[in-house]
């Protein structure tokens, strides 16, 4: 192979694999988590994911229209928890870290799965926390909080997550 050919091959090879942007990967993971959770609420037309206090457009571009439990995903962005309508998943961004307790109060008994990357989220009343370890995203789940909202998580998800047993 001549030098030119080698360079072109290098360009092609280097275009084949990629690290993922953290924001994008988080959204993809949120989309996958839905498949491991059972909600206990009346059937709705869409599977709705509400995104609180962030403009992360990957929710829209990556998840909107994809299907969970045969229902198309609908993504709703809100800046205030009071604007929340019924939702299957509430993704709480780090911008809301100061308001967690009021958020939890607002969604109490609404059978909504809460996911966030806020530090200590799973211990502060949240259900599924995304955190990084060794440049990879990991899941931390507070099973008590999940059960308290009448949700069920499959054991296969629990097996690949770390669990917070006590809600402190």
């Amino acid at each position, binding site marked *: 192979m001549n030098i030119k050919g080698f360079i072109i091959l290098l360009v*092609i090879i280097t275009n084949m694999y990629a690290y993922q942007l953290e924001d994008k990967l988080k959204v993809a993971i949120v989309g996958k988590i839905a498949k491991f959770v059972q909600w206990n609420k009346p059937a709705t037309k869409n599977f709705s994911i509400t995104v609180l206090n962030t403009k992360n457009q990957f929710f829209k571009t990556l998840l909107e229209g994809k299907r969970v439990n045969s229902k198309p995903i609908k993504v709703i962005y809100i800046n205030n928890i009071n604007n929340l309508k019924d939702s299957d998943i509430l993704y709480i961004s780090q911008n809301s870290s100061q308001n967690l307790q009021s958020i939890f109060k607002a969604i109490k008994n609404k059978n909504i799965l809460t996911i966030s990357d806020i530090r200590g989220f799973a211990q502060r009343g949240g259900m599924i926390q995304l955190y990084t370890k060794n440049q990879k995203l990991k899941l931390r789940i507070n099973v008590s909080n999940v059960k308290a909202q009448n949700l069920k998580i499959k054991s296969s998800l629990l097996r690949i997550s770390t669990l917070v047993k006590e809600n402190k």
Partner: protein
Amino acid sequence: MKKFNYTFLTLASLLFSHFLYAEGSLSKDSLEDLLNEKIELKSQVGSRDTAKNYLDSSSAVDVITASQIESSGQTQLTDVLKYFIAGFNATTSSITDAKDHIVSFTLRGMSSDQILVLVNGKRVHTSAIFIENTGVLSSGTTHVDLNTIPVISIEKIEILRDGAAAQYGSDAISGVISITLKGQNSTNEITTHAGVRKEGDGSHYQLNSFVSIPLNYDGFFNISLSGDKQYQTQRAGVDRRVDPADLHTHVGLPESQTLAVVLNSEVVLENNIVLYMDTILNRRDTQSSAFYRILSTTRVQYADGFLPMMESQILDYSGTLGIKGSFIHNWQWSLSNTYGYNSFDYNSKDTMNYHLDPNSPTSFHLGKLIFIQNSTNFDLKKKLDNFTIAGGIEYRYENYQIKAGDPASYYEDTELDIKSGSQGYMGYTPEQKVDASRDNYALYLDTSYKNSKNLNAQVALRYEDYSDFGSTQDVKLSLGYKILPKLLLRTTLSTGFRAPSLAQSNYSHTSSALTKNDLTEEDELLQKGIFTVDNPVSQSLGAKALKPELSKHLTLGSVYQFTNKSSFMIDAFYIQVDDKIIISDKLAPITQEQIDIFAAYGVSTASYLTNAVNTQTFGIDIKLNNNYTFKGGATLNSILWYNYSKNEIINFNELLSEGRAVVIEKGQPGHSVKFLNEYTRGKFNYIVNLNGYSKFYQTLGDTAYKFGAILTVDLNINYKINKAFDISLGANNIFDAMPDKWDRSNEYLGYDGIIPYPSNSPVGPNGAYYYLNAKWKF
């Protein structure tokens, strides 16, 4: 047709490659696959904004992760940086007084004290050691002792290859090394290291442990312990002053033993307030030697000759205590205090003071150097839509002390007009004792704008007022613009400064050396000294008060991200430094007034610190980073990095000898290249690295001697026994490349002398090093 195919493939690849990893790919992966995906490396240094992909930074930034450090097999921080960073140089030297006891380092060919070091975002204090030997790298400086930070405690190292005084204040001229200690979610581990040089000497052992205790709300309390024992290497030539010629003096790595403890903790309170602290405690004892003193019939003690042994006890500790949180409208705040202490306790043994013969003590306390730095910071930050506004105030206090040695180490008989020091190193005298302090206030503002699509702009301003030389104002403008989704153009323009260190303003020391009198052809014990600028000796030579070094910086670069896993960086830089501080030449008195003053101080030559030269440094970094995953999961990570750095003296403010000018301009390799390759397949991990350095010069008097280019190869094979255990076998410089010997010789220094190798070689004279590492994760 073939040409068309190549062109078509290239264009198609370039244009559509970012779609290959678009949404579809992630959607098809399983959750487990997604949790195994690596996310982009983020950096924080050079900005008060939140951490972002280091490849998107408007300044040139490099990141070294804990995992890379582990794979490298390196056990000292200076070795880690030298291993990964082209243009980073670190040297050890022998028979260079206090310099024997610290590893000096440079970035992009500039001075050691022109690099700012941060730990967890806070300024690190420098060592108390003032390097007074003019023949070595970092002469005339005090710099950070990087090896006080054990590598097992490090989560990430960020290297900013840009001036950043407008953000961090003094010293950030050639760059910033920002170290993040291991924080939450770190794995407990115990590691061991054992190695030996090809020559069979220089054995090195290290035992480290890291334990992380999780606290509520993802808080943590981490403890790192490190014990290190380094035995000496011997690379001296035979001593031809004795008959028969034999090996008497020690040249090579000194013997040392180190114990280090690092604590790092964050306690997260119910209300999201975070209390944070870190502490680094390091104690290092080092033994080196001076030149062998040959037999003397006029001496009773050690009449057959003796080798003065130089011993140091270095105590270094630093600690930060802080609190951070956020209040109304998401304003983030942080209040912290960082205290740093370094002391250098200098002793000698197996030596004597000639004038006290036959009753001279044989061991001496030579004195103690102490540097203390305390910084208090209050920072505020607010993120608006596309803007981040950050600012703060800093108060810093510094103190430098020299404590005198034993009276016998600097014996003085005023009646007989005799001054004589202990052989090897003369103790600090009561006249040289100093306890000098200063403080400074700083006010800084850092704003950044990030258009979500392609524009990233930053303006940083800093005002600083020092109690000893007044105020400075610095500014930094940064701009990054993505002209294509994968192609970033970046540029920065900034001013900077480096305040004269307290040691540079207050250090003085005299030493005695047997020197042959040209007229009588007999040996005379002559005194030479380095004096503070306000000392009458310096004043008689025209010394002026030290001013800060002032700098101007321009960088222009580009990053092309083939993917987030493969990138090409090219960054050109230009740095102009005015009033660079160096030690003057050793000057003899000429006028009668000077002769009288020199006589009063008992010295025959003198030097002092001076803002002697204006310099310009320019160069380029070109870095290709490619991580490739083969079918079946094997990975190949490669970094090809070329650095070119050129120093030039624009003009002299004061007389400077030809030899000193050569050291500044050509004392370090202008070209360096790194080709790092790590291949992982199954349980095995293989590393093959090539390191190349171009020629450099060292001088004796005004004569410059060239030392040729050198290439070294490092190898490492790692085997994961199971999830918890792994072992690795490695070699640094496996083909035992050695620097050229001096192309001249006398009894002391040269190819046939006691010191055959140059002290400033980036490779050093110690040769191949073979090691075995073992690690247990739990």
